[in-house]
């Protein structure tokens, strides 16, 4: 929800980043305030996923110039774990399997690292089980998932629900959900979307990265950004997503050409 005086959570300024010396982001500018839901759309290779990984601090992506500040902190100076503790959450497009590490233990250690940052009491095994049982309801997950290894052998939908479960436990300030809708059937999509809606609060913000309108039917964005060639090309409201759905991305190519012609 857009409100006049809400806090500025994230400010990305002229961000350039590359992977293996290949520039991927070419000057991204974005401001996200508390209470808002943003969606970034764009084709494969437009830089959407890269942006999410750069915010979270993936070591393979090098920031070559520009800045990201989060509640006034220079995010780029922080290790990924410190970004997470501060309240940045990245929901992975392809959640990683970690054989042998129990999901329950993983969730507990992660939750406690965030709680510690917030000066909350850390939870012991028993206390944590009570907490996690409550949160499981949000994503309609069975307790059996807790005793398995992290994401190992989970179906696509189960992995995504496990991501939202982590989001529920970590109570982040800014949640970036990278193609959370991909690979989900309509039921799973609705469960995941309902979870995200339920977790959205006036003091937090959400950044959705998606190809498709169908997620945006479930979670209504306040802003829709179109990304191409490593930049945000256009920003609008939810109607922009609908427009993309009907007319496709050809006009984006046209705009890039025009821009190239002008410069």
């Amino acid at each position, binding site marked *: 929800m857009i409100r006049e005086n809400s806090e500025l959570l994230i400010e990305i300024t002229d961000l350039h980043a590359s992977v293996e010396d290949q520039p991927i982001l070419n000057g991204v500018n974005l401001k996200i305030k508390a209470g808002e839901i943003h969606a970034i759309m764009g084709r494969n290779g437009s830089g959407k996923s890269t942006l999410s990984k750069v915010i979270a601090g993936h070591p393979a992506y090098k920031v070559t110039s520009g800045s990201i500040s989060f509640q006034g902190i220079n995010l780029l100076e922080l290790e*990924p774990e410190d970004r997470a503790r501060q309240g940045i959450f990245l929901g992975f497009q392809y959640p990683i399997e970690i054989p042998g590490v129990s999901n329950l233990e993983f969730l507990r250690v992660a939750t406690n690292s965030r709680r510690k940052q917030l000066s909350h009491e850390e939870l012991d095994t028993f206390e944590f089980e009570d907490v996690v049982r409550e949160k499981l309801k949000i994503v309609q997950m069975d307790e059996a998932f807790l005793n398995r290894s992290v994401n190992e052998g989970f179906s696509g939908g189960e992995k995504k629900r496990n991501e939202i479960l982590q989001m529920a436990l970590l109570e982040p300030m800014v949640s970036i959900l990278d193609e959370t809708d991909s690979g989900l059937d309509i039921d799973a999509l609705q469960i995941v979307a309902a979870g995200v809606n339920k977790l959205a609060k006036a003091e937090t913000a959400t950044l959705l990265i998606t190809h498709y309108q169908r997620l945006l039917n479930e979670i209504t964005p306040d802003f829709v950004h179109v990304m191409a060639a490593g930049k945000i090309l256009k920003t609008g409201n939810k109607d922009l997503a609908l427009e993309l759905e009907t007319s496709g991305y050809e006009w984006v190519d046209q705009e890039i050409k025009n821009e190239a012609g002008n410069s």
Partner: protein
Amino acid sequence: MANQTSVAEIVSEPYKYGFVTDIETEKIAKGLSEEVIHLISAKKQEPKFLLDFRLKSYRQWLKMKEPNWAELKYPPIDYQDIIYYAAPKQNEKKSSLSEVDPKLLETFDKLGIPISEQKRLSNVAVDAVFDSVSIATTYKEKLAEHGVAFCSISEAIVEYPELIEKYLGSVVPFSDNFFAALNSAVFSDGSFVYIPKGVDCPMELSSYFRINSGDIGQFERTLIIAEEGSSVSYLEGCTAPMFDTNTLHAAVVELIALNDSSIKYSTVQNWYSGNEKGIGGIYNFVTKRGHCRGKRSKISWSQVETGSAITWKYPSCILQGDQSIGEFYSVALTNNKQKADTGTKMIHIGENTRSTIVSKGISAGQSSNSYRGLVQIGPKASGAKNYSQCDSMLIGDQAEANTYPYIRSQQPESSIEHEASTCRISEDQLFYLQSRGIGFEEAVSMMVSGFCRDVFNQLPMEFAAEADKLLALKLEGSVG
């Protein structure tokens, strides 16, 4: 941004047990000869059969060659430059712990193995071996009430000569291999366990081996006998001070399981492994073998091998009794210049015998870590089954992992399964954990301990957490 520290950098933790106890030690002169063997035997006031056993072994050893088939390269060992007997000086035989030199008790306290009456572990009986001799064995009386004998092998030679004569060398013959022959000639002390018929040993038994002197070799000898229908769980731990020379450790362990008995033998080996350049450290050449002599008997080996410059060790099971079971669960972690060549042999002789092998090797630094295992199914072992799983984890890009599984079957009615995998801790896995607020170091240690879970689950409860901590320590470093 990102990590200033690589995984390889954090897998180094200073060795915590590297101190030397300043205590007066009685040592014999360097070198090995028949005279030295006479001297050792005389010091221990041994019966004649044992002296003969030693001499026979020594003469055999002289004819043998040091094995060189393992993935281990090390400078030649000068066997005449080693002291074969060293013992802390103390007054004659101790009747109670209060008479043991407090410095020795303190040493074991410092190692986390308290043996004094007030501090000893509840429910774990400990035999503490310092250089060549056993210092103390706790809970002896309590165990005796159940008919369980748990003492140093030197005492057993005096008190149970008939058991020693019957079983010593019956599983690992003195001529078995170069290091076993050497051990049989010069072994100084070690633990002895006898569990009578039908008795479930009421406590965990544990031996703790401590090398203190730099120029001695430690040659301990352990013998465990489980009579019909009995069971026991035994754990050994080892540490040594840091010296810039290499110290030889050549142990022999023999287990005998009769009908319906079971022996669980766990090792947490943390000998000094040398510095990051590979200087110093223990050469660990060990022959461990269990004989499932009886029907439906079971022998289970679990080992967590983290120390030593060189490890050469293949705890094995001879599955002679029908329906007997052999197990081997191993975690071997090597770092810096450490080299480990370890595995098992499962020799199926009886019908419907079963064996399970789970081996997890973790190689970091410039270390080399090899699994070497033999599964042999004899012509009479119809219905025999084996399952083997050998997984390797590489940390950094300079470490080496090898797997050498040997399979020989002379029995068509048998089944052998072998699975193997090699993995590397991936950047994506680390990033995933980090992006949930879990620190880099903790993430690595979480994944390593996850990798080893199948083996840790096999350790006695009191020590599973200990082993987990030990690995975490080894992987802990300079982050932050």
